[in-house]
């Protein structure tokens, strides 16, 4: 584990697995990163995640309790939607396994194919 990005993923993993909102200390205990992390580090990561909209928090007593804003599946679906929205893009950042943006060229290729193999 290194880098803030990986820590964010690990913290989200803990929150997604938890049935209910967690305090910072609970998150710290739930983290299995292979090395001891400081309380303030986890607090910073949770703060970042809150700022980015991944988690919401509520003041209970004196301490904040954190929970994920969406379920893991919803988050995955959102991420996919974002990817797919841009996959028809002119930039070619993404290549999709079973989708292509060029009806016209497919038609050209199909016409170039010998008749024998064009039969369905």
């Amino acid at each position, binding site marked *: 584990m290194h880098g803030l990005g990986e820590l964010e993923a690990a913290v989200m993993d803990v929150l997604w697995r938890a049935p209910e909102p967690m305090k910072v200390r609970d998150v710290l205990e739930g983290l299995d990163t292979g090395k001891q992390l400081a309380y303030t580090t986890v607090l910073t990561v949770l703060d970042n995640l809150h700022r980015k909209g991944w988690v919401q928090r509520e003041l209970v007593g004196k301490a904040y309790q954190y929970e994920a804003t969406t379920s893991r599946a919803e988050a995955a679906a959102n991420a996919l939607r974002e*990817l797919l929205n841009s996959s028809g893009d002119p930039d070619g950042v993404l290549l999709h396994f079973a989708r292509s943006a060029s009806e016209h060229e497919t038609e050209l290729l199909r016409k170039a194919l010998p008749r024998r193999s064009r039969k369905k």
Partner: protein
Amino acid sequence: MTVAAALLVTAGLTGLLAPRQLLRLVARGADPLVPLLAWLASTVSVVTTAALAMTLLLLPDHGSHVLAGAHECWSSLEHGMAPSVEAVGGAVGLALVVGLLVRLAVVSVRGARRRARRRRDHLAVLRVTARREPGSPPTLWLDHDEPLAFSLAGTPGVVVATEGLHRRLTREQVEAVLAHERAHLNGRHHLLVAASDALSTVLPFLPLFRRAPGVVRELVELAADAAAVRTCGVETVRAALLGVSGSGTPGSALAMGRDSVQVRLDLLARPRRRPDSARSLLAYGAACTTAMVVPSVTAFVGLLALIVVACP
């Protein structure tokens, strides 16, 4: 003057006629990388041939020393225009070509920046939501029911896949899908797509440039299929493609995807000689060289033929 004109004509003809020939090559079941490389080399060749023509106009003897042996005939063929007219024409043409190249560079750099930004955004989201399976390139697994797979450009690029693949496909078929995506990354296919986009933006005049984005997108899919076939076998790739494309992603984009998938399935169904690497490399080299020299050679052969006919 005449040499320059001949070069320009053949450059134009290449831009017009090459697409059909190259697509025919694909349909005959050639290694998809051959037409892909030939296509890109042809675009370079058309631009350089045009630039060469302009440069010849500017040279004092219009490059006629090339045809020194046919000098007498040459002078009779050369219906003289005032040298100054040719020089001006050459300068204007050359300026045009240089201008286009500069614009190509600007468009490319701008596109590269935009892609880098988009890639960063995607990765920021994926890092949190996806399970990372280390490897080269790493695979990011998203917990989602639809079987989907992408490759995200970059150095290193990443493969993005959904757990739905495991639910719909066998282990070998999933491996075929991943092999296809890795082939995109290893072959720098995103870069080829981006280059063809930039070309068609800057030079939309000839079919060779205008059609490049669509054709390159199709061809890189075929090339990645071919790579997957080499490691996983034709039947596995076919089954994986059917399994993924048949699983009802909604929206009009899919209709297109289906068409494209059908062509890929058709091509996979055709018997293909297993390429050995030495022969492939030779074919790639030959494709590039041919595409590069055909316009110039045609121009000079055409001129020689003209001379032979006109001055027996």
